[in-house]
């Protein structure tokens, strides 16, 4: 049987990818940020998953205003890094896992979540920056990501985005779906985006470290309380783009303690840093007990 063994949470700031691609990660501005992911890169090597279920949002890349799915699951064989206006990031093609993805789609839709099924799309920084942070940019002589990835895109661009509670419930459905897959696979679920940031208007540059750290505390120890946070609190306290944090609740909902199978989760790593460009960066690694 497939099982979710761990969840990873991280911001996906595009400037982080740009800094890595340009080899600027040792510059004084970026050093403290990348230091916070050193543990994580080693942890990825020591705990290599068979598949990563990667929750992210598309930033007007694959989905224009022609089509705005609230939840979209990638069931394709592969996905190209997108040209977001600067040219595509020089990172590997993302290899999918069509069999598991299709299984999850069928199971989760039958649990009353209306997923959009996507077989062809490019993936933007929302998906590739977390891979770069956790795995490092792969070298030319081994130009591939460590394992297949199932992209799961959440609309957080056009209001209303799904509530934290719905995301948390969806995570629970995804866990059930994974556990009903026959093949013995080690699956990680990642929730990305956030933390506090606002990219628009006179309030651009908003950072609320108190809100962010309280969110991290809640997400670890009392995820139901984190799931109850209404939209307006994210917008008001964490900035208009801070709403991305609802995606972390999908990953958290998929952990075993939420299903009553454990008393809690094992906190392997916690990191918080301000700033990366316009954004507060938060990062957690949680393992099932």
């Amino acid at each position: 049987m497939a099982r979710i063994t761990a969840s990873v949470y991280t911001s996906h700031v595009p400037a982080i990818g740009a800094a890595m691609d340009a080899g600027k990660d040792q510059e004084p501005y970026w050093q403290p940020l990348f230091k916070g992911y050193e543990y994580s890169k080693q942890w990825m090597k020591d705990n290599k998953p068979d598949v990563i279920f990667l929750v992210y949002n598309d930033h007007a890349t694959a989905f224009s205003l022609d089509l705005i799915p609230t939840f979209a699951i990638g069931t394709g064989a592969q996905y190209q890094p997108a040209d977001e206006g600067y040219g595509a990031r020089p990172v590997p093609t993302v290899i999918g896992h069509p069999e598991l993805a299709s299984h999850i789609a069928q199971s989760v839709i039958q649990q009353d979540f209306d997923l959009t099924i996507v077989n062809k799309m490019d993936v933007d920084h929302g998906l590739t920056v977390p891979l770069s942070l956790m795995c490092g940019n792969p070298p030319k002589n081994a130009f591939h990501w460590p394992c297949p990835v199932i992209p799961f895109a959440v609309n957080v661009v056009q209001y209303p985005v799904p509530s934290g509670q719905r995301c948390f419930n969806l995570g629970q459905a995804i866990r059930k779906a994974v556990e009903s897959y026959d093949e013995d696979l080690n699956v990680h679920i990642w929730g990305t985006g956030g933390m506090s940031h606002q990219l628009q208007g006179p309030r651009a540059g908003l950072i609320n470290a108190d809100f962010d750290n309280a969110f991290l505390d809640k997400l670890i120890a009392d995820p139901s309380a984190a799931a109850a946070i209404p939209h307006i609190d994210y917008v008001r306290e964490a900035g208009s783009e801070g709403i991305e944090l609802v995606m972390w609740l999908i990953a958290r909902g998929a952990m075993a303690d939420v299903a009553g199978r454990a008393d809690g989760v094992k906190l392997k790593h916690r990191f918080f840093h301000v700033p990366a460009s316009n954004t507060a960066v938060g990062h957690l690694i949680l393992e099932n007990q």
Partner: protein
Amino acid sequence: MSLNKPYLDVPGTIIFDADQSRKGYHLNQFCMSLMKAENRERFKADQRAYLDEWPMTEEQKQGVLTRDLNRCMAAGGNIYFLAKIGATFGLSFQQMAGSMTGMTEEEYRAMMIGGGRSIQGNRYIGEDGDAQAHNQPQGAAHKNKKEV
């Protein structure tokens, strides 16, 4: 019954909801076209002619031509779409976001390195934080305005 919009009292912020999306449809779709290199080149070669290929309002076109992202937002733009305009001209997201505050690039960057904009006074319209309408523009531009 009208839709509940609890976010209208957040200062310095436009939430991209269904109404904004409808208003900004062609503006945002124009931005999407800049994800192709050949379109970026055509736009750079003659911006006005390229914009005239889209059924955008004159206000939207002026917002784009003057790179006034606040004006584009008010006209229905969304920042992730509008970012393609900046990307076309090699601007970073920080430069784009900062341009909406009235601060210089250096001032905005320094604010971020200093921990970002404080939430104090910036939760509700009517408080006295730096994002409030009566405190615009920000940075040195604000002091200059006061002296005049």
